[in-house]
């Protein structure tokens, strides 16, 4: 087996045993990126030199018998939504195409400190808004299982790079399903931790009360390893949970006794692809065979989750993205052209005697903002900013934003009730498998409805994981979603590991020419 086929856990074993060096491992993945990424397009930037430098440093310390961090020289890819000091961080947006942060996100710092080798930054939907990575302004990412299909999103590059063996571990972010859905589409393991488990400091905000960073990997064991490296309280993030972080890599292997699994009635209704349903029901049987008891639970407000989400997330986004105005960093329009344009508009108003038009004209500063943002931001980002501005604006706040916050509590209460009966909630990650590129780009609402099974976890703040549980007849991966009560990531990982011990879906790799 070549190095790139190994899991991070196995690579670590070989590294500590001295069978292989981090430079060799890193080079192997860099080579794979070199050959496979032309087709997949998972990376926006590859930091070859600094990765090899970091790897050599780990090797020399290991050789000298000095301490080596938890990730011990294994490469990690970072979604380009996390700030990396001195390395361009784009959010897949023209707005930030040349933005070089002067600081590291806490998660990036922790990965460096744990000796994870930062191999590159992965593609995504612009500002994490989307579910197919088609909203990237900087590149196209394809699903390694079928290059005509989308990898999912927004962490499409993060999922695709693991699926195509270009990185053993990668960091994704999940605001409404952006880790779990691409993990499902690409046949990898992706965990969205409980809100607050992982610091958001340095994660470029989409929707602050929903965003969460999480690990993507081939196995639950590897996801546990990466989660252990990145989780923990951070004084720089006021919403970071002030609780001790378990050693997930140590506990992931312990099987769960008497596991009670709940199937959400509402997750098996209209819109669910029959093949996906059948596969998920098979997966449930695996758990049954492992001694779990299965029962039905209800999340009665689930049908309001999408509407709630598409009020709260755009509202927060409209404010979070106000900073991209072309003043302190980011794209600014051509000022000369802009001034000329304004002069032409003024002349036209004057000639037609349009007093109101003249009065309402933008100042050059306001036009600079509007033009810079119009040029720097893509259509989906604009749509959500507009939507969020509308739902927060005078006269609509109570009907939309405040209402959504109340329904959000009801959604959370549904979970609390369900988790009195069961340990985990299990169901499909997505209603169907990865769709063809371009299939949904003209209809934003239909794209939004894809998030039906994933957004509730973000609204409620609970953790969720997607693991491979089978394939469609067309050869596309199908994801099984497990959700757990707040801060029960250990259970999610243990249950996932149990499944992966009993099945081999997670070991399958796409064949790239």
């Amino acid at each position, binding site marked *: 087996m070549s190095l790139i086929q190994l899991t991070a856990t196995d690579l670590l074993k070989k590294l500590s045993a001295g069978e292989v060096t981090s430079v060799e491992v890193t080079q192997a993945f860099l080579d794979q990126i070199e050959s496979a990424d032309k087709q997949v397009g998972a990376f926006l930037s590859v930091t070859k030199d600094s990765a090899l430098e970091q790897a050599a440093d780990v090797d020399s310390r290991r050789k000298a018998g000095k301490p080596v961090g938890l990730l011990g020289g294994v490469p990690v890819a970072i979604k380009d939504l996390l700030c990396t000091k001195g390395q361009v961080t784009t959010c897949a947006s023209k707005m930030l195409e040349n933005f070089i942060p002067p600081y590291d996100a806490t998660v990036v710092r922790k990965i460096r400190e744990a000796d994870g080798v930062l191999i590159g930054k992965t593609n995504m939907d612009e500002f994490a808004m989307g579910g197919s990575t088609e909203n990237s302004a900087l590149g196209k990412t394809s699903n390694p299982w079928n290059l005509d299909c989308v990898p999912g999103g927004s962490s499409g590059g993060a999922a695709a790079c693991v699926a195509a063996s270009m990185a053993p571990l990668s960091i994704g972010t999940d605001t409404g399903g952006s880790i779990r859905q691409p993990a499902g589409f690409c046949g990898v393991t992706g965990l969205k931790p409980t809100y607050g488990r992982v610091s958001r400091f340095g994660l470029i905000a989409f929707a602050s009360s929903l965003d969460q960073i999480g690990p993507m990997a081939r196995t639950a064991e590897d996801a546990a390893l990466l989660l252990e490296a990145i989780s923990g309280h951070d004084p720089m993030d006021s919403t970071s949970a002030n609780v001790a972080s378990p050693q997930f890599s140590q506990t992931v292997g312990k099987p769960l006794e008497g596991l009670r699994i709940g199937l959400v009635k509402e997750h098996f209704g209209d819109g669910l692809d029959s093949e996906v349903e059948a596969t998920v029901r098979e997966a449930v049987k695996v758990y049954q065979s492992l001694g779990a008891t299965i029962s039905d639970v209800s999340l009665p407000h689930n049908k309001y989750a999408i509407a709630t989400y598409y009020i709260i997330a755009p509202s927060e986004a409209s404010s979070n993205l106000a900073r991209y105005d072309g003043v302190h960093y980011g794209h600014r329009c051509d000022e000369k052209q802009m001034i000329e344009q304004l002069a032409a508009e003024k002349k036209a108003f004057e000639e037609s005697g349009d007093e109101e038009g003249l009065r309402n004209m933008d100042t050059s500063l306001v036009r600079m903002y509007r033009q810079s943002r119009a040029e720097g931001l893509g259509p989906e980002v604009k749509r959500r900013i507009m939507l969020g501005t509308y739902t927060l604006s005078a006269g609509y706040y109570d009907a939309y934003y405040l209402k959504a916050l109340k329904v959000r509590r009801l959604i959370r209460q549904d979970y609390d009730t369900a988790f009195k009966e069961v340990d985990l909630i299990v169901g499909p990650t997505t209603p169907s498998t990865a769709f063809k590129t371009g299939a949904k780009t003209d209809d934003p609402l239909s794209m*939004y409805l894809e998030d039906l099974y994933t957004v509730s976890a973000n609204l409620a703040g609970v953790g969720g994981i997607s693991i491979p549980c089978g394939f469609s007849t067309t050869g596309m991966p199908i994801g099984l979603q497990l959700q757990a009560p707040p801060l029960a990531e250990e259970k999610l990982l243990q249950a996932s590991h149990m499944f992966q011990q009993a099945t081999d879906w997670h070991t399958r790799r796409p064949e790239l020419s």
Partner: protein
Amino acid sequence: MSLSREDVEKVSLLSRLKLSEDELVVMTDQMSRIIDYIDLLSEVNTDDVEPMTHAVEQFNVFADDVVHQSLPRDEALANAPKRDDECFHVPAVLGD
């Protein structure tokens, strides 16, 4: 259509986005359909339900009032599209 073109134009100014005529037409249609969809929430009874602002309820997160090193100025200004050695530049705030 739940939104008019004028509504959308007003929101575009509030959002500091300049939309072309074509974009305004498409945006009006798309936003209207999304607004119609999210209006679904009006059927939920939320009497006596407290709004949930944070996913995890936490209180009293403070930092001590101790000065940390600021960024060197050249780093603070490094990403600015227009600047001099000391300051960020924008088109005249006063004036026209």
